[in-house]
């Protein structure tokens, strides 16, 4: 591996205290298939970390372990100083308020309108908020993604790009500190993909979020990445900025940017 990439690793060690997500030595297997092996990761406050890797390399498993949808076989995952692997379901629910998750498939509730989709994460706060406050939050989230006019539409009536924006609005409605994006531009045309990438940067600036972005889309990576991690064989192969990795002489790294 290059000297610049080793420097990035030492930068990570120095700044470890600022990390909002700290993953140490996690292992995750499905039967014989070892997806994550002795995996470490730091996500620092206010940064966009892109995780690049081939299909099936464990990227989605990684963020599902972070949010607690899957449990690693070994290792610790500290999110905002709480060890996700040891939390009970109510503690996990409290922590999840601070974490947004954008699903690859958007995961909008088909049987609900856009308004009901956005109101859904607010349900546990309904006792604290009146109808006007809920409405204001919904409209603010929709305005952030430029789709205020779709509030009473059903998800099936929206285009792919619009659905992605609505899913993003739903992710934002609880004003999370951390956002996990699972392939946010997959399946979108290049123009819409670029719009979503720009929107992700705007969100980062406006809400001061820290994000992990799983992506294959190099155009998206170019727009959003502060730092990139390359995942190969269930382990972190390299981390660095886009420039550092693009100029790497390592063949395995180069293939991601060709």
């Amino acid at each position, binding site marked *: 591996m290059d000297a610049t990439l080793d420097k990035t690793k030492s930068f990570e060690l120095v700044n470890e205290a600022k990390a909002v997500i700290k993953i140490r030595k996690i292992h995750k297997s499905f039967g014989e298939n070892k997806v994550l092996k002795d995996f470490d990761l730091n996500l620092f406050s206010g940064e966009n970390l892109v995780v690049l890797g081939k299909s099936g390399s464990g990227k989605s498993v990684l963020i*599902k372990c972070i949010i607690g949808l899957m449990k690693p076989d070994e290792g610790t995952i500290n999110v905002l100083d709480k060890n996700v692997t040891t939390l009970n379901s109510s503690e996990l629910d409290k922590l*999840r308020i601070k974490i947004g998750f954008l699903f690859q498939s958007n995961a909008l509730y088909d049987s609900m309108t856009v308004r009901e989709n956005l109101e859904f994460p607010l349900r546990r706060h309904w006792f604290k908020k009146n109808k006007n406050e809920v409405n204001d939050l919904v409209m603010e989230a929709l305005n952030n993604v430029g789709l205020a006019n779709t509030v009473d539409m059903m998800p099936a009536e929206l285009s792919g790009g619009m659905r992605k924006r609505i899913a993003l609005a739903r992710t934002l409605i609880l004003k999370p500190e951390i956002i996990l994006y699972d392939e946010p531009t997959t399946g979108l045309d290049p123009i819409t993909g670029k719009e979503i990438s720009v929107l992700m940067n705007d969100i980062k600036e406006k809400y001061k979020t820290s994000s992990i972005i799983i992506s294959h889309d190099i155009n998206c990576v170019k727009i959003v990445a502060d730092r990139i991690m390359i995942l190969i064989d269930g382990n972190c192969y390299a981390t660095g900025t886009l420039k550092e990795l693009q100029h790497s002489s390592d063949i395995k790294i180069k293939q991601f940017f060709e």
Partner: protein
Amino acid sequence: MSFNFINSFLEEVGDVSRFTIRFFIELFKTRFEFKEFLRQCFYIGNKSIGLVIITAFIMGLVITIQSRPTLVDFGAEAWLPKMVSVSLIREIAPVITALICAGKIGSGIGAELGSMKVTEQIDAMDVSGTNPYNYLVVTRVMATTLMIPFLVILADTVSLYGAYLGANIHGVVSWDLFWNQVFDTIVYSDITPSILKTYFFGFFIGIIGCYKGFNSKKGTEGVGQSANSAVVISSLLVFIIDLLAVQITDVLNIN
């Protein structure tokens, strides 16, 4: 029968039992989603009324027409309303209605939850801090448990109207005579066990539909399989529960 088949069958029984125990834990432990429960009652109850009415009416009509010749042979034509009403209320209307509901509601729940699972909507609920089991399973199972008895009572009534029409196709039975014979024959021990068993029909139709949907494998094929196996298993359970109900009423001498 191979060892693997027995093994997977027992595993499935264990999983369904765990799923059912969780239902009772969540029902009493967590906040009840009343709004969603009412919505499900509307979908499960109200939207099945048309189908139940049509099938119950035809059931009553056909059973009466087909029973008549045998009774005529024995010179017992006058017993037609009595015999038909007992068989409809005790057995045919509850079981046929439950089977229709297993087909319509069980497959609907299996497919809906299956597609929610496949498109990560259940995970999205989990991530947003809402307990998906409580929101999706508890409400649906409660709705099927409470709505199917109502549908059966409706089916009982409508099938008797069908029977009245059937009795008048080849013979003449006055409105008053028909209903007097029906109400003289039917007693509480006919109605109570037949309604009580429908709560169990409803409960298991809901549980199996939700279990199959909730555990749907990835992909659209998995959704289809969930819907299909929900119907097959819940229909089979309707017959098994019916068999047990008959044995219990027999032992308790409620005949």
